[in-house]
Structure formats: structure tokens, C-alpha cells
């Protein structure tokens, strides 16, 4: 059971549910004997159990369900009529199945035993040409007994209850024998007592009521005497074989406890998980959403009260709400294994189709996702896997020729990261050649050569997500129609996720899906436009830029199209007020914010009046009334209780005609080059000094709690993304005063060729765009290149190369792009490759 444990458990839970349904169906069937629908349902249930039990090698179970199935198929096909007798036989069969399942649950396997008597009973119904004669046979069991030598025990029991309990119990009787068949022991007397009990406890609900009461009553009554008589006759017989007789009681004794026992042990499986209507979960989720909102309001209100008791209560509420929210979200979670479990087969079939040898590895299959998201991820994931098998991994010959093992590895990996679930599909195949991608993209007219020249490797790889792109040499029936990757991207973005690809030629490709944990509550940015607030899903927001009109950050126009130079690249701008058709009060080119958004592979800046805050919001779906507008993804309630609309970033982009195939990134490269000597500088405070760092060289800005900084030897380091990151305090390098340390340290992270260093500063002050032509250059000072007046203040220019080497002397060993040039006066192109926006 060990390795099959999960499967068996699942089988048990499912079967128990099915059996309950079956009981109801069977009884209902008696009321409307002709119902094909019920028969089919019953047939399916038994068929399922049979199939699984065969698979799991539960032979007894399989045998019993097999005859049941045969009988049912006859009934279903109309080959014979439903009679109380057949019902009884079927119920008996069901009870036997239930007993066997209980046994399996208890022992983890089937115990040897004999079910031939039940089988015979059911068979009796089948072989019978007409239903009528059968009735006595089944009810009385004794007739069956003679038929099957193996059944002697049964008669005893059956007879026993029948006799004492009289007409009322007969239906119960059939139920009992089954159980004995399974086990057996005590005295028959007890059996009698127990049986009715069982009848009441177990299958009681269905059989007793309808079977004896309505139509059944008279016939059973008639039958009962018969059985009673034979039983009496049989009694001695059965007394004859006392060992068996002795055994049956046990079962019967068994069943009674079993009912209790059953309850206990079954709680371990069936009762531990219950099926809940998804609607109910949704409702719960909504209520929790309300609570989160109320919590936000209350906490805000408490903030203004300054009553310690109140504050404590508020904090407690805050905590409980968060926990509740988490728990409720968990109820909707399912392990991603639900999806993955189908993939080994896919990979196996495909790899044999293509003559490839592929091993499928899965990491983190217990990672959970909201079930609705799981559903949405299914197709994209399958497509990526197919694609990896088809295009990613090479044939064994090619692999061997490339010095790789003949068997390729396809790795599925799922893990949590920063409030998202990341699902990776990684192959160790040939990788994607950016040059090839670039060539094809140009051939297909997806990009121009000029555009291409301005793109870095990642951007080029991302071209595979463009509609109409396919690198497959031949269209196969698996993938390669050029409809795949863009659909993957669209589907993932539809649920607020993102997909990207990285690849190393010769070493393989990694597709990365970033999926939100849930759809119902999202992290969102609240902005203001036209005096109304709108909400943008945070996942689409890359960064925020403030245009104050003084720092030279302005909107330019390329043939009337508004653009903004973001670190040397032109960012098409979309005015939210224009897009929404809002009246605007005068200029909206200065003193506005640009939210840099990304959707469907297009990056654009959304110009809004103000940026308010980010918070978790509860998504309320909009009704069809507003669907046609298309710009809204939903609505939410803000902290003050007002409704705000959630913007659909992809639709906004489309509405502003950004997404039209042509691409806007080309908007005039000459402007871009012309603007080359305005550099983006990060201004940081170090002690009481201001230090400028070229932003093009910065990978990320981070903030570490001070206690995460550890020491190795004389160096300070911090653990960062599974790396040990050397930390250099600029104050030490520059000999600046160190002011009182706060609880966190802002750091500027550089990454190159997989090596990273962190420069710790005291404060990140600003990001400016500045031409440095009139700066003073006095290379004298340690660690500095010179100084310049930026924002009316003297600002020192950091010698980044020195700083990096001070932090990690080996940083540039593999490559030193800074050796030969002064980063302050380079065109920005050279360094852009290493830049990743902080929100990416």
C-alpha cells in the first residue's frame, strides 16, 4: 500500500461517495424501474469501481463488481426487467463492495475471502429468463445456497433474521450475508440481533423504506415465510457445519462494530475530506473579501485614535483576517500535480512519435494553485511541454553528437515566489538561437532590422510570443503552426500572469510561467485620473515615473504620437483620460505620473494624474452590462467603501492601438540616438553626501533588513536569491560619515554573467536624467570619478568599477565591459542588456 497509498486512498474516498449515490439510485430505480438514466448512472459507478479495482489488483472487488456490472448492463439494455429481487441482489452486491472497501481501508489490502455467494445471487438474477421466479431465489438466498455450494453460510444468516424479524427485516437479510461472507464468527443468535441493526445502520436508509413498504411489502411477506421455512430446514444444516456458522457471527458482530469502526476509520479517509460546492467557496471568498475591506477601513480608523487597547484589538483583527483569508484561499487550492499527472503520458507518447528519449522530472508537484487558475494554466502548460518535446529536445543521435546523454530531460518545476506561483518547463535541448529568431522575425516582417538592432537577447527571444511566429521547419501535428506561443502568452496574461523564456544555445530552454495565487484578491496599484480612482493590477506595473517638468523629463512627440524616453528607450504613452474619454483640465504633460505597464508583450506608459498606493483589493466581477466596454477587468471596493474600476491593461493597450501588429517600439530610432548622452543616474545618499550611479548598470534596487547582512571573513554578505551576495558599504569606500543605521539597508544590485554584488547606500534619493558635460572631473578622490551639479546640488560620481571590485575582486574576471570605457559617457546601448526593471 505504501507506494500505492495515495491512489488507494483516492479510490476509497471516491468509491465511498459513489456507493452512497448508488444506494440512492438503486432505491430510486425501484420507484421508476424503467429509468434508463438511473441505470446508466449506476452502471457507470460500478464500472468505475470495477475498473479501478482491477487496476489495483483487488480481485475480490473486481469479481463482485463484474457480476454486478453484467446484471446492470442487461437491465440497462432492457434485456431484463427490474424487480425487487434484482434490487436486492444489487444492494447486496453494493454492500459487499462496501464491506470489501472497508476491509481494504483497514488493512491496506484485500484479505482472502469468499464472495461466491453474492456473486451467485447476482448471477441468479442474470441467468433467470424472467424476473419473477428470481425473486424468491434472491430474497431467500437459500435457493442460491443450493445452487452454489460455497454459500452454505449465507442461508443461515439470511434465515436467521428472516425468521425472527419477520416481514420487516427481509430486506435487511440480504445485506447481512454479504458481510459474513467477508469475515465470520459468533453465534447465529447474535447475528439475528445484529443484522437488523446493521440494516438500520448501513444500507438502511434506502432499502428498508421503499423495498418493504410499498410494492415490495406483500411479495417479501410472501417470500419471507418461504425463506423462513427453508432456513428452519437449513438451520440444522448450517448447524451441521458449525465452523462456518461460527464464523459468520464475527462478521455480523463485525458489522455492528464495523458500523462504528467503519465510521472511525472512514473518517480517516472519506470524512476527512468533503466535497463542497464551488459556489459556496466562492461565497466564502467573497465574504472574506468583505472582511478584508472592513479590516482595512477599521485599521485606518484606528490609526487616528491612539487608543492602545483599540490598536491591539485592531492588530489582532488584522492578523485573524489575514489568516482567515489565507485559509479560505487554501480551500480552493489544488496541487499542480492534478495537471502534471497527465503529462508523463503526453511526453511518453510524443517522444515515441518523434523517436526521442525523454525523461520527465517533476519538482514541487505539491505546489498549490487556485482551482480556477489551474484550469486556465492547463492548456498553456500542455502546449509548452509538447513544444519542448517537439522542438526543444533533440533526437538521441543529435544529442550524442553534441556530447550530451542520449536521453533528454524535461523538468517541470513549480514553486512560490513573491506571492506568485512560478511554473517552469525546462529542457536540456538545443536551446533557442537568438540569431535564428531574429532572422525569422525579420523574414516574417514581425520586426525591422533597425528595431532588431536595438533589441537585447531577451527581447529577441520574446519574439517567439508574437502572433504568427513559428520556427518549426515543418508543421507537425503537435506544434509548429505558429499559433502556439502567442496563445500561451495570451492565456496566461488573461489570468493576470506572465510568461517569459530564457535559453542558452546548446544547453536548453526554460519557459517560465508566473501565475497569481488567486484571482479573487489581487495586489493592485490605485491611481487617480479625472478625480476618480482606478485600480491597475500590480502584475502589469513595471515602474512609475513622475514627470515634473523640471528635471527635463518630458513628453515628446513622434509624428504626434506621445512618447517618453525611459532610460534611452522610447516608451509609447497612453493618456488614461483620453482613452476613457474624460474631460481634462488643461495640460496633462507635466506633473503627471507615468505607470510603465506591460501587456501582451507591449510596454507602454499610462499617464495618470496621481499615484495613490498599492494594496490588496478584492476583485468583483462586472456584469455583462460593462463587458462590451472592454476597458475594465472588474470593480473593487476601496478602503473608504467607494467603488473603483479595475483597468484591463491589455484592453487599454489595444484601445490605444498599441497592440496592432506593427509594434511601436520603433517609433523613431533617430530620436533615441540623438538623446544618447542624457544619462540616467541613480542618486543615493551616503552619509551627508550625494552619490550618482549610472542607472544603466543597475540590475535591481533592494532593501535588506539589517540583520540579514552576515559576515564571512572581513566581508559582509547577504543571502539573496540562493546566492551569497557580497555587500559593500559605500560609506566605507568613500570614507563618508555613517549615520545611525536604520532597520533596513537599501542596496543597489549589479549582476553580470551570473555574479552579483550589492552596494549598500543609506538612502535612494532619486533617479534623474542628466547630461554630464559640464561636470568637473578630478580623478583624485578615492572611489569617485568626479562630481557634477545635479538638481542644484553637488553630486559625486561613483567609480562603479572600483566599487564593484572592492566588493568582489573577481567580479570581472570573465568579462570586463567597463575596462575600456567610461560608463558616464557611453551611449546607453551597451549597458542596457543588463538592466532589468525592478518590477520584472
Amino acid at each position, binding site marked *: 500500500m505504501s507506494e500505492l497509498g495515495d491512489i488507494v486512498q483516492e479510490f476509497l474516498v471516491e468509491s465511498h461517495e459513489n456507493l452512497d449515490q448508488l444506494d440512492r439510485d438503486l432505491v430510486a430505480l425501484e420507484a421508476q424501474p424503467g429509468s434508463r438514466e438511473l441505470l446508466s448512472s449506476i452502471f457507470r459507478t460500478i464500472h468505475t469501481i470495477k475498473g479501478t479495482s482491477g487496476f489495483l489488483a483487488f480481485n475480490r472487488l473486481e469479481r463482485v463488481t463484474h457480476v454486478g456490472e453484467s446484471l446492470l448492463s442487461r437491465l440497462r439494455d432492457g434485456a431484463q426487467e427490474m424487480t425487487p429481487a434484482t434490487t436486492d441482489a444489487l444492494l447486496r452486491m453494493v454492500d459487499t463492495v462496501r464491506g470489501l472497501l472497508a476491509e481494504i481501508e483497514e488493512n491496506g489490502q484485500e484479505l482472502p475471502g469468499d464472495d461466491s455467494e453474492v456473486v451467485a445471487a447476482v448471477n441468479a438474477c442474470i441467468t433467470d429468463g424472467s424476473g419473477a421466479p428470481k425473486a424468491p431465489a434472491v430474497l431467500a438466498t437459500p435457493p442460491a445456497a443450493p445452487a452454489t455450494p460455497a454459500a452454505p453460510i449465507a442461508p443461515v444468516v439470511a434465515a436467521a433474521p428472516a425468521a425472527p424479524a419477520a416481514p420487516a427485516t427481509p430486506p435487511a437479510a440480504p445485506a447481512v450475508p454479504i458481510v459474513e461472507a467477508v469475515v465470520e464468527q459468533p453465534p447465529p443468535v447474535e447475528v439475528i440481533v445484529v443484522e437488523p441493526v446493521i440494516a438500520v445502520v448501513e444500507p438502511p436508509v434506502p432499502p428498508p423504506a421503499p423495498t418493504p413498504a410499498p410494492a415490495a411489502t406483500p411479495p417479501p411477506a410472501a417470500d419471507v415465510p418461504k425463506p423462513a421455512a427453508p432456513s428452519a430446514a437449513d438451520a440444522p444444516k448450517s448447524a451441521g457445519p458449525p465452523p462456518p456458522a461460527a464464523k459468520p457471527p464475527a462478521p455480523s458482530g463485525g458489522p455492528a462494530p464495523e458500523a462504528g469502526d467503519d465510521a472511525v476509520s472512514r473518517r480517516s479517509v472519506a470524512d476527512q475530506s468533503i466535497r463542497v460546492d464551488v459556489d459556496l467557496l466562492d461565497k466564502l471568498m*467573497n465574504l472574506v*473579501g*468583505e472582511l478584508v*475591506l472592513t479590516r482595512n477601513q477599521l485599521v485606518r480608523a484606528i490609526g487616528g485614535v491612539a487608543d492602545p487597547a483599540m490598536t491591539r484589538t485592531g492588530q489582532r483583527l488584522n492578523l485573524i483576517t489575514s489568516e482567515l483569508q489565507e485559509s479560505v484561499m487554501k480551500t480552493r487550492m489544488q496541487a499542480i500535480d492534478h495537471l502534471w499527472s497527465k503529462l508523463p503520458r503526453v511526453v511518453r507518447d510524443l517522444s515515441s512519435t518523434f523517436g526521442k528519449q525523454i525523461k520527465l522530472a517533476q519538482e514541487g508537484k505539491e505546489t498549490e494553485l487556485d482551482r480556477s487558475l489551474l484550469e486556465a494554466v492547463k492548456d498553456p502548460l500542455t502546449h509548452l511541454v509538447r513544444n519542448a518535446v517537439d522542438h526543444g529536445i533533440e533526437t538521441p543521435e543529435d544529442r550524442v553528437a553534441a556530447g550530451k546523454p542520449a536521453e533528454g530531460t524535461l523538468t517541470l518545476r513549480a514553486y512560490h515566489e513573491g506571492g506568485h506561483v512560478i511554473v517552469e518547463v525546462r529542457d536540456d535541448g538545443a536551446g533557442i538561437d537568438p540569431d535564428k529568431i531574429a532572422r525569422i522575425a525579420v523574414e516574417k516582417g514581425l520586426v525591422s532590422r533597425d528595431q532588431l538592432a536595438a533589441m537585447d537577447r531577451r527581447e529577441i527571444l520574446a519574439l517567439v510570443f508574437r502572433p504568427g511566429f513559428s520556427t518549426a521547419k515543418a508543421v507537425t501535428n503537435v506544434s509548429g503552426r505558429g499559433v502556439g506561443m502567442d496563445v500561451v502568452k495570451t492565456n496566461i496574461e488573461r489570468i493576470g500572469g506572465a510568461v517569459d523564456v530564457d535559453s542558452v544555445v546548446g544547453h536548453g530552454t526554460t519557459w517560465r510561467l508566473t501565475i497569481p495565487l488567486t484571482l479573487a484578491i489581487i495586489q493592485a496599484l490605485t491611481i487617480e485620473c*479625472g478625480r*476618480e480612482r482606478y485600480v491597475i493590477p500590480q502584475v502589469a506595473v513595471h515602474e512609475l515615473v513622475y514627470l515634473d517638468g523640471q528635471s527635463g523629463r518630458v513628453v515628446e512627440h513622434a509624428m504626434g504620437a506621445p512618447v517618453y524616453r525611459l532610460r534611452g528607450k522610447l516608451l509609447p504613452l497612453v493618456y488614461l483620460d483620453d482613452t*476613457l*474619454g*474624460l474631460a481634462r483640465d488643461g495640460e496633462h504633460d507635466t506633473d503627471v505620473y507615468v505607470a510603465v505597464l506591460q501587456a501582451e508583450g507591449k510596454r507602454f506608459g499610462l499617464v495618470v494624474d496621481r499615484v495613490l498606493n498599492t494594496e490588496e483589493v478584492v476583485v*468583483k466581477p*462586472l*456584469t*455583462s*452590462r*460593462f463587458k*462590451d*466596454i472592454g*476597458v*475594465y477587468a472588474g*470593480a*473593487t*471596493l476601496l478602503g473608504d*467603501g*467607494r*467603488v*473603483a*474600476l479595475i483597468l484591463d491593461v491589455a484592453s487599454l493597450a489595444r484601445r490605444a492601438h498599441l497592440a496592432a501588429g506593427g509594434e511601436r517600439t520603433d517609433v523613431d530610432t533617430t530620436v533615441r540616438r540623438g538623446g544618447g548622452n542624457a544619462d540616467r543616474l541613480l542618486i543615493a545618499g551616503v552619509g551627508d553626501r550625494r552619490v550618482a550611479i549610472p542607472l544603466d548598470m543597475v540590475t535591481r534596487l533592494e532593501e535588506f533588513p539589517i540583520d540579514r547582512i552576515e559576515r564571512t571573513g572581513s566581508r559582509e554578505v547577504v543571502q539573496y536569491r540562493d546566492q551569497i551576495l557580497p555587500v559593500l558599504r559605500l560609506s566605507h569606500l568613500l570614507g563618508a560619515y555613517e549615520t545611525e543605521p536604520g532597520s533596513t539597508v537599501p542596496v543597489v544590485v549589479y549582476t553580470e554573467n551570473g555574479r552579483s554584488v550589492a552596494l549598500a547606500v543609506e538612502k535612494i534619493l532619486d533617479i534623474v536624467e542628466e547630461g554630464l558635460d559640464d561636470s568637473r572631473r578630478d580623478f583624485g578622490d578615492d572611489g569617485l570619478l568626479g562630481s557634477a551639479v545635479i538638481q542644484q546640488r553637488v553630486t559625486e560620481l561613483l567609480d562603479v568599477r572600483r566599487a564593484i571590485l572592492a566588493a568582489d575582486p573577481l567580479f570581472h574576471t570573465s568579462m570586463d565591459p567597463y575596462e575600456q570605457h567610461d560608463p558616464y559617457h557611453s551611449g546607453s546601448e551597451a549597458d542596457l542588456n543588463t538592466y532589468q526593471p525592478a518590477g520584472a
Partner: protein
Amino acid sequence: MASRQYATFEVADQLFGLDVAKVQEVLSFDQYTPVPLAPESVGGLFNLRGQVIAAVDLRVQLGLPPRTKSAEPAMNVIVKTEEESVSLLVDRIGEVVTLQDDTFEPPPDTLQGRARHLITGAFKLDGRLLLALDTTKAVNTNPPGSSNNREE
């Protein structure tokens, strides 16, 4: 004699009535979140105990100029439809009245324009007429055929 109960309200001094069974509640509210690009008849969204409710400007639905902000605060008649709860913005709320079927007449032929589609008929009360509204059409800001909306 068959009779029915109607929740009554006034829009532009005309008395209207809705089947009381369709009315969830009545309340006053004055903060609506506008929905840019939505049909003119959408008066905005508001928060009703955690539900986002769309308010439909009945004036526009009836072919009248839209409600202005300076007007007295609108009353909301919250109507249950199959899909959602919707609010109808009206001027004043009246009583719930029981009306006899024999006082009912189909809409007069002189009734024209958009209003005609929303009104199922008129009840003749003492001294004034009560126009019965079709709930579904009254809250429909976006009819599938959209003929209702385009017509003037």
C-alpha cells in the same frame, strides 16, 4: 378581482410603478463611481453592503436628459434581475399600492419614444396615472438588438 402590488416612485413628476416582488429595497445614496465609456444611461456604480451595484439613470432610459449633479439626491430602487441587482435612479419614492387589474390599460398610442418600450401600461388612479414599468427593459442599458437604445 385580481390585484397586484406596486412599488411606486416619481421621475420628472410622473408616477411609475414596479411589481413589488421585483424590488429588493429602496435607499438613498449620493456617491456614484462613474463608468467612463459606458452608455449614458449608466449612472455609476456604488457599494451596497459589499456588492457592486450598477445604477441606471431612469431619466435617460425614458428618453429624458440625464440626471444632473445639482438635482436633489437620487433615490435608488434596487431591483432584482436574474443576473444581478441593479439600481434604478428615481426622484422620489412613493408608497406601495395595491392596484386592481380593471384599472389597467395598455399604454396610450400617443406615448412615443424610448419610454414606450419600458412601459407596459397605465393604471388609472384618482387624479393621476401610474405607469407600470417592465423591470427587465427598465434596467437594460445595453439591449442585444440595441434598437431600444438607439431610438429617440
